[in-house]
């Protein structure tokens, strides 16, 4: 019983801290939706965000704002030009970008060996 209480407290703490990290007026990112939408990304970046193909970056634990900006830049196809990522980002909505960035940024790189 005590454990459940502690768990609830921890969850509450975590939830409030995520909400606090949000700019006012924007809904919190939906990590689950991000994961679902990112399924096609896993072919190269993997579900755990640790890429195995040489030349493909790890996304686990990457800065959320950076990921959002990168995806937006890939989507507009002007600021960042890359035949793979321009195609992959094109169908993403603003919400998708926020969710996917949140999904990858919340992962840790622990126990996965050094980043290449």
């Amino acid at each position, binding site marked *: 019983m005590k454990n459940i209480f502690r768990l609830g407290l921890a969850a509450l703490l975590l939830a409030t801290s995520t909400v606090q990290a949000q700019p006012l007026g924007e809904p919190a990112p939906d990590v689950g939706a991000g994961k679902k939408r990112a399924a*096609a990304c896993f072919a190269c970046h993997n579900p755990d965000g640790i890429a195995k193909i040489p030349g493909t970056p790890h996304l686990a634990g990457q800065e959320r704002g950076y990921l959002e900006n990168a995806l937006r830049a890939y989507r507009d196809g002007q600021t960042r030009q890359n035949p793979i*990522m321009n195609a992959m*980002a094109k*169908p993403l909505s603003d919400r998708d970008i926020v969710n996917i960035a949140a999904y990858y940024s919340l992962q840790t790189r622990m126990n996965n060996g050094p980043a290449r």
Partner: protein
Amino acid sequence: MDMLGMYPTFYVPGIGTAWVMGIIGVIHVVASHTSVGASFLFALLETKAYREDKPQLMDFIKKYGMFLLVFSYIIGSITGPGIWYAITVASPRGVGGLIHNFVWVWAAEWVYFTVEVIGVYALVYLIGKVDAKTHLKLTWSFALASWATMLLIVGILSFMMWPGNEAWYQTGSTNDAFYNLNFFAHLGTRTGSMVAMAAVVGLMVASRLKDMALRRSVVKFLAPIGLVGGLFAVMMFLYYLQTLPNNAVVMLNTHLLPVYARGMVAVFVTATLYLVFAWWKPHRLYTSLTVAMFAFISIVGVWPEERMRESMRKPYVAGQYIYGNQVIARDVPGKGIVGEVDKIAEHGLLKLHPFVPDRLRVINDSNRLEVGRLLTKVACANCHSLEPGTPLRNIPDKFHGATDEDLIAAFMQGPLKHGTQPYMPRIDLPDEEVRAIAHFLATVNSGKDVDHLIAEQQKLATKVAAK
């Protein structure tokens, strides 16, 4: 418009034609490596019997030879043509490409194979009927002919991985194809492992010998040869890994070694320990244990080895110019072969593939799913099964169950269109074909019964046509 020289696609649910071929192939490799390895053990053992005047060793050779005749040669001779049937169906253009390179090499292989088969009969049935020296010559001829069949087939198999040089693409010469970069490493690996395997089968036969003195002398002879063979195979395998193309190295590191490395080390360690044990205590050689050891080597050793070699070669099926999906990947001026990827990008598979049914050549709302299934089979199913959870690198799992059509299509228009994944072919298709495939895959991934849906749509379409 000229059609491509494509053949009908055969599809085996779950395991694909690739595993059908793989299963037949592994049985064949186990049988054939054992018999080629055994031929050398016979030759060495008989030389010993001749020099030291120990005719009783010939009893063992006769027993082992009979065992080979009954098992290896019959199984090998059934599975050999079996491989031909399977690869012709699974990869018709791959086989065609190999025949256009190696027709005389195969002809030579079959000559040696004939010598080998006649040799094993003569060897077994002429013991004691011809003088010892003539028989010894016969056994050595048998051994060399056996190894020649392996040498010739390895040149072809190693070319399948890649020529390793630009020369062949320009000359199209059989020599440039045969003596490719990984030929010697591959030959060494197989030669070492065939000796080790034959030694283990030799112990199996020796365990049936009642005469303990004979058994001891045979085992003390076989075990060290098997150990040297195994060690040689491992060293040559490490060399082989250095002769692989980049796509194979990436495949190895990302997908294969994490799965198979432990098993392969386990096979080497267990086989070594077993051979050392047999060498040390020949009278403790139990048939059941030897049979189990051999099964272990076949299943945990040979199957992964063959599977790895087949997987590493991806996306190509032969010579880095034919993709697994039978599309010609690049120009080969030496053979007058022209790449097809760009032509397919421009006109689409539906227009260029000769075996697309006419009602599916134009996509509309009532046939999109069926066209998607057809195109997926043509473009992907040679290497990927389409049912979730099945063993041949199934697509639903590779896509992690993605149900978003737009992102599946994006993957095809990004990485696949530009060929940026090292072990995937460059698949560049017109937009509406991409959308049909994405529609099909998304439907499969969402867990719907696609075959049933397609049957319904067909029924509806015929009804509409009848009106």
